[in-house]
């Protein structure tokens, strides 16, 4: 909402600087977003009269003007094609500044001295809306008489300041100059004077000129109308055009401008119909019929339905109630008789209509927030008054007023102690009543209660909390003391799960991974990008009805594509190493179409590349994580095939037999889809399986008292035999006395037969109660070798 300061000052006395006004309004709840000073940057530009024009001796396209600027005459050279003797024009004097910081100096143009510059509208930063003709090619020609030498800002009305307000949806009354003036008067504690509305007696009888039928009274609680005859459609006076333009509304013609002016002034949207085009001279307020069509004022054809309210005549719709008028009854230069509408429409239906058709007008923005039923009549009279004052037509005597709504004000019984209790302050009943009365509430204090009559323009006030806010904002939020809660002591703590989650991140960060945060919606095509082409394997997804684009239209079921994108981006930017993880939910629909909320299953996804990064690096990181939660012994890594991954370098992680996730090298084709040429390692784990299995209890085991004995074991086995199999075998055969088994070398090549590999283990034996003898160890070690031979066909190397 834009409000020119001069306009505001018509209704409220303001004798403080505009910045202080803005601060007072902001701190009482009417937030000022900005202040624009019109004509800022213009100085030393005055009104001048072109007395004589001579050709330039040295240039065809230039002329030499003699300009009277009041106290002297100046010689100024210009190239503008539209100057004529006798015109009044803006003259930038020697030393003048124009918007954008341009400085004007006396100079010599092609040998002729020029003591200033004649200005175009654009050079003064003006558009046609600020001043008619400002956008013409050439000098701005002033259309009215002004004293010569007058500051151009004063002449053009550019000396005002415009306040921009952020009006919250509960305060439609403040979408008006009068409403803001009312707030300003309370904020500054200075007198408020709303416009004095008086309509002079009209001619004839309105009931003989037009009829209004409201067929859906619940959707139109009040419809007020007046008729004006013999209108003279033309431009409105400059002062009105300027005010509208300053408030951000384009001037159109006197009739439309008056309706807009009243809307800005009083907050009540109005509409004018060309009455001669209203069939049967009858206004019908009704629901639209399904499929009915209307061309609105913006020249777009709208297809309507029964959830929309229209203004119609006896044949056809002529406007969308509270949203926009129809082109078929638009005010034109030829309009003779008009019907002025000032009505109250149901908030819900206006909003539905405007949403469904995608039209957000100044009118609909106000109606959907709830307007004052009394203001409809006042605004209609105000418009009639302006028509009379501007001589724009002859107002017909009388008003049509179809009112089904209640004109009674809401009455509340509020305990003033409760208001104090909510705010934590201690105002007396009288102090509180005084604040409310300044806001035009009628208050009677009756013991513990206040009987409060709410003014009709405050539809938002419904109960004690609303009253508390009114009291608080005028009392001053910053005068309310600060305390910390008394009462029951609560324990601030994280849940066990939250603590585990923190530790997961801590461990991952410790292994060199950076945490990333990526979008949780994605493209349905990501499955193809990660190699999942079989429709059977593509998961069911949660789809967004109104996505920003196809690429962000489904909720993700895996984080892998998002992380590959991050790797890709970093690779493209020349990073030789990128190691990342993210924890976030997969959105898994329980059924489609969605009838219940989807499952949000938290995933932990790791992705990395770098000079020393391979499968075993990734697996090592996951082992560190498993170890942190006491799960290393329960973990089983099973070779696995999945279309996203390299078929020979991928494992399924099982914890106590439960599938927990996948880890492995990304399939080269998938990597290629992300413009990645290096080996990419990815793991995706179901975090809940991990957290639910976590073993939190730790018990001390005494440190060994007796020495360990180490023996190496180099085996040759078939290539297909997995090291996990060998290790399991060794452990089974070694029993209690075998303390540790570590693979320290893997070898294939010379001296090893084709199809075989050599695995070298370091075995460590120890007993807790004695020093083992060589004989014992030899026997055990030999039995392990023998067992491996029998079970896995292993040979000693």
């Amino acid at each position: 909402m834009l409000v020119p300061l001069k306009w505001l000052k018509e209704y409220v006395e303001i004798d403080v600087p505009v910045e202080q006004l803005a601060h007072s309004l902001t701190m009482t709840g009417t937030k000022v977003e900005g202040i624009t000073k019109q004509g800022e940057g213009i100085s030393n530009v005055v009104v001048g009269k072109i007395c004589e024009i001579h050709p330039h001796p040295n240039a065809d396209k230039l002329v030499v003007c003699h300009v009277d600027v009041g106290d002297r005459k100046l010689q100024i050279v210009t190239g503008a094609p539209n100057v004529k003797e006798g015109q009044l024009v803006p003259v930038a004097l020697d030393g003048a500044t124009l918007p954008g910081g341009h400085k004007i100096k006396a100079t010599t143009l092609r040998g002729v001295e020029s003591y200033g510059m004649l200005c175009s509208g654009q050079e003064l930063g003006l558009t046609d809306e600020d001043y008619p003709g400002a956008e013409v090619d050439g000098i701005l020609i002033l259309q009215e008489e002004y004293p010569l030498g007058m500051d151009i800002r004063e002449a053009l009305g550019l000396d005002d300041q415009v306040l921009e307000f952020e009006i919250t949806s509960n305060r439609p009354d403040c979408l008006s100059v009068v409403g803001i003036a009312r707030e300003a008067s309370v904020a500054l504690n200075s007198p408020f004077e709303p416009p004095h509305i008086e309509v002079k007696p009209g001619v004839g009888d309105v009931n003989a000129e037009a009829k209004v039928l409201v067929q859906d009274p619940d959707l139109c609680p009040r419809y007020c109308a007046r008729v004006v005859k013999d209108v003279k459609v033309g431009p409105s006076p400059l002062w009105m055009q300027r005010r509208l333009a300053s408030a951000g509304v384009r001037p159109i013609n006197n009739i439309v401008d008056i309706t807009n002016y009243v809307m800005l002034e009083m907050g009540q949207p109005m509409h004018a119909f060309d009455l001669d085009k209203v069939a049967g001279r009858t206004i019908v307020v009704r629901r639209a019929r399904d499929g009915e069509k209307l061309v609105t004022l913006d020249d777009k054809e709208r297809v309507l339905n029964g959830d929309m309210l229209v203004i119609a005549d006896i044949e056809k719709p002529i406007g969308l109630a509270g949203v926009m008028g129809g082109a078929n009854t638009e005010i034109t230069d030829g309009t003779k008789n008009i019907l002025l509408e000032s009505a109250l429409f149901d908030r819900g239906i206006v909003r539905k209509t405007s949403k469904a058709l995608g039209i957000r007008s100044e009118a609909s923005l106000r109606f959907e927030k709830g307007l004052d039923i009394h203001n409809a009549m006042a605004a209609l009279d105000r418009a009639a008054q302006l028509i009379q004052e501007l001589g724009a037509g002859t107002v017909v005597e009388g008003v049509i007023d179809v009112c089904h709504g209640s004109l009674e004000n809401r009455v509340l019984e509020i305990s003033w102690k409760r208001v104090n209790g909510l705010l934590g302050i201690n105002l007396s009943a009288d102090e509180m009543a005084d604040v409310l009365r300044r806001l035009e509430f009628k208050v009677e204090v009756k013991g513990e209660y206040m009987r409060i009559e709410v003014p009709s323009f405050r539809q938002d006030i419904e109960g004690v909390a609303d009253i508390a806010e009114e009291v608080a904002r005028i009392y001053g939020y910053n005068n309310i003391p600060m305390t910390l809660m008394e009462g029951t002591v609560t324990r601030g703590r994280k849940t066990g799960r939250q603590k585990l989650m923190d530790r997961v991140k801590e461990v991952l960060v410790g292994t060199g991974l950076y945490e990333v945060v990526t979008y949780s919606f994605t493209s349905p095509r990501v499955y193809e990008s990660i190699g999942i082409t079989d429709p059977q394997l593509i998961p069911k997804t949660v789809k967004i009805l109104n996505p920003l684009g196809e690429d962000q239209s489904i909720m993700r079921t895996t984080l892998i594509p998002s992380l590959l994108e991050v790797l890709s981006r970093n690779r493209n930017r020349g990073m030789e190493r990128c190691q990342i993880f993210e924890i976030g939910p997969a959105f898994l629909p329980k059924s489609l179409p969605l009838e219940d909320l989807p499952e949000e299953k938290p995933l932990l996804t790791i992705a990395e590349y770098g000079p020393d990064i391979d499968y075993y690096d990734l697996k090592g990181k996951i082992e560190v994580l498993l170890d942190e939660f006491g799960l290393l012994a329960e973990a089983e890594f099973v070779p696995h095939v999945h279309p996203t991954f390299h078929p020979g370098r991928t494992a399924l992680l099982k914890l106590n037999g439960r599938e927990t996730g996948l880890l492995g090298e990304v399939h080269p084709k998938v990597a290629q889809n992300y413009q990645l040429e290096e080996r990419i390692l990815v793991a995706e784990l179901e975090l809940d399986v991990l957290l639910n299995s976590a073993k939190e209890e730790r018990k001390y085991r005494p440190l060994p008292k007796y020495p360990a004995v180490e023996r190496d074991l180099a085996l040759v086995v078939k290539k297909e035999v997995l090291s996990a199999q060998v290790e399991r075998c060794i452990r089974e055969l070694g029993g209690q006395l075998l303390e540790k088994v570590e693979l320290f070398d893997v070898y294939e090549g010379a001296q090893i037969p084709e199809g075989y590999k050599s695995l070298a283990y370091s075995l460590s034996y120890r007993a807790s109660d004695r020093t083992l003898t060589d004989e014992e160890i030899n026997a055990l070690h030999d039995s392990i070798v023998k067992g491996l031979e029998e079970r896995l066909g292993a040979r000693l190397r």
Partner: protein
Amino acid sequence: MKAELEQIRREAEQVLACVSNLQDLSNFRVEYLGKKGKLTQVLRGMGTLPLEERPKIGQLANEIRAYLEEEIEKRKKVLEEEALSQRLRDEVIDVTMPGRRHYRGKLHPLNIVLNEIKDIFLGMGFEIAEGPEVEWDYYNFEALNIPKNHPARDTQDTFYITENILLRTHTSPTQIRVMERQKPPIKIIVPGRVYRSDAVDATHSPIFHQVEGLVIDKNITMCDLKGVLDVFAKEMFGPQTKTQFRPHHFPFTEPSAEMDVSCTTCGGKGCRVCSYTGWIEILGAGMVHPKVLQYGGIDPEQYSGFAFGMGLDRITNLKYGIDDIRLLFENDIRFLEQF
């Protein structure tokens, strides 16, 4: 024989003075005191001496041995000291050369800041609650006093999944979920991801993060709201931070407020960051609307409370001086490693 021994002592003294390293010292010991050493050789000849001289010579020989042992030890210490000094001189390295790199990752800046926020509120007795990102319209709007066709829905352009299911536009639905399952006193914060149908630019992202707060108990007042949030601001942005509360409107709180903190860049003098106002808006808050308490199954006659909500992304950007929200979601390692 005595003369022989004295001769050995003198000779040994001279030789020992010239021994310049530990190896030579060890050789010296063998040469004089070893099994075939000079002293031992001499003593072998003891058998030829008359019986009464033997103790004297033996004593002298032992004296010389003890003397030489002692001298050797002294010399050894000196030489060891010298050798160590030499080694230390030889082992000088350029300590300014770069260290061997150990890779440690980092948390995302959003979560670094979130952890700080959590710590502040945990310290004030809050718990951390969570709620779903795909949410019922009922929890996201209806139960927060934003019925269908309410204009406040405009300010939160919503992604819908079905007519009744949506991507939550704020963390506030968790307020209702917590009220439904927990009796007062309630003191929670709710961090989480939220969604609004905004086109991406330097200050907007369709996905961002909020931290919600809710306190409900008997006799909770607006003073408590101000007190708690002032403590938060001072903990978060430093003890010199000032707060200011302005009236505002949210459908789910009444009275409602916005809180500004004194500009974190200029301290309140006015600069580009605070648009020369000295203040930066960081959160919305208010007393929980009685209708919202009722929706949560809590009697507004008995209980009152306050709620607040802040943008985590915005606070993170403020804290680190990040000027473009998109950086948070790009995850450039050169960005992530700075925090």
